[in-house]
């Protein structure tokens, strides 16, 4: 049986205790909201896309250590990156969480950085939804920003 240390890696707890890009943004920033109906976790993603770049991102809401740290790492990973790169990362992350969305196999050549630590979540299937919540919410925010 996988142990707690497989799930709660130190870097995850660090992001949980000191979340990056925490806060909110006023319009014209776009906002999207994600809910995990099973546990009541809520994530808000605030986003400003400028010239095809994720110029600013803030994370609100509340949830467990996995959903919060995943959101924190995600915000750090996509901030300042081109939208296409952010979308590719969403695809890659969900693939790592064993969520098959079809489409091409993600390019896994670039290092994942802190996000690598969330790999252990796959061994705890119940928690995959926690880890993926913020990524789905980001995808929605990117869609809104593209409208």
């Amino acid at each position, binding site marked *: *049986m996988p142990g*707690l240390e497989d799930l709660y890696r130190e870097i995850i707890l660090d992001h949980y205790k000191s979340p990056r890009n925490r806060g909110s943004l006023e319009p014209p920033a776009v906002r999207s909201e994600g809910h995990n109906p099973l*546990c009541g*976790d809520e994530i808000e993603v605030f986003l400003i896309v400028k010239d095809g770049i994720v110029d600013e991102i803030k994370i609100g809401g509340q*949830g467990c*250590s996995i959903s919060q740290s995943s959101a924190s790492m995600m915000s750090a990973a996509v901030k300042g990156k081109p939208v296409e790169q952010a979308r590719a990362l969403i695809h890659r992350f969900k693939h790592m969480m064993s969520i098959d969305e079809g489409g091409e196999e993600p390019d896994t050549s670039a290092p994942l950085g802190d996000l690598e630590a969330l790999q252990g979540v796959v061994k705890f299937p119940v928690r995959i939804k926690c880890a993926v919540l913020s990524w789905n919410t980001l995808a929605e925010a990117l869609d809104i920003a593209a409208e």
Partner: protein
Amino acid sequence: MSFDVQRVRADFPVLAEIINDKPLVYLDSANTSQKPNSVIDAMTQFMQHGYAPTNRSAYQLAADATDKFEGARAKVAAFINAPKVHEIIYTKNATEALNLIVRSWGTANLSAGDAVVLTHMEHHANIVPWQMLAAERGFTIRWVPLTSDGLLDLSNLDTLLDGAKAFSFTAMSNVLGTINPTAELCAAAHKAGAIAIVDACQAVPHMPTDVQAWDADFVTFSSHKMVGPSGLGILWGRESLLDAMPPFLGGGNMISDVKLEGFTYAELPAKFEAGTQPVIEAIGLGAAVDYLTAIGMDNVRAHEQDITVLALNSLNDRFGSDITIHGSTDAALRGATISFAYRDVHPHDISQVLDQNNVCVRAGHHCAKPLMRLLGANATVRASFYLYNTPSDVTALCDALSEAGDFFTL
């Protein structure tokens, strides 16, 4: 008969399971209960030796199956002291039973300008069906608020009930454990001219139930929370009300006659039992009722009260100000369902650490989001005890919680 929890435990095979070298500590019975051998055997025996359609075929096997199916209905009726056996309606689950009331009684009786009274501690099953019909019919929903210790605040009940047509409330909160004064609430509803609907999902499995002493009009509960199988709920209703209501689902079994021009419906209970029924599950519930009756519901309640006192004291003694227990601290006013917050550790993370010790609790909103908002929490940890839980289960909970605290010290 004296109550021996170890003998009770021996009846539930799953409680002897060892997972990852550790015994199972099952504290999620408010969610769903475990099953004793007598229930498992009754269902298996029926499938091996007696399974056949009910209420339609003329051969011996079918007649015997029908007798067993109807016999289970009689057992359920006796268990809650229903005046008439045909007032017991089998449904898919308690949620469907509540939907049946709302769709059938509600559609016939509620329109714009009417009011229905619910409480702030209801399960979604006793909220959403009303909201769905209210959106169609335009009646209003009023809410009985709560006191700070998780009891219903009845100070304005008469005002809330004034002009209302129905008062639908839980007999025991699935989050706070609060046991509501059901007979008093039914009387208040009747005084205002409203019918009284009791969601008894958390009450029927845990304490003696007498629908006549409550003087309720409808009572709903589920088989799976009272050591019976899943897939079966019960609606009890007053015959006069059930007779006056239109059918809920249409199809086979619920009709008296069908012509091209239309149909006439069957007598109770078939009127509300469209299609092939959960026959095997009903046999299982009958065995569950026999099991609980043999133990004695007074004994079940007394045991759970002891466990509640022990759990409340142990959690407070060991964790002091680190733990916030929601609901009443008085075991006489509550059942053995205990929701709590522990420091700032998220309930999901607590349940993960508890799971490493095979301590099974629910972490989440418990299908009661309006109540959770009132508590100011997205989620709580809920440990719920039943007749098979022991003092050592309480210790296991506290030990695992202590481990969670160490792990997540912020």
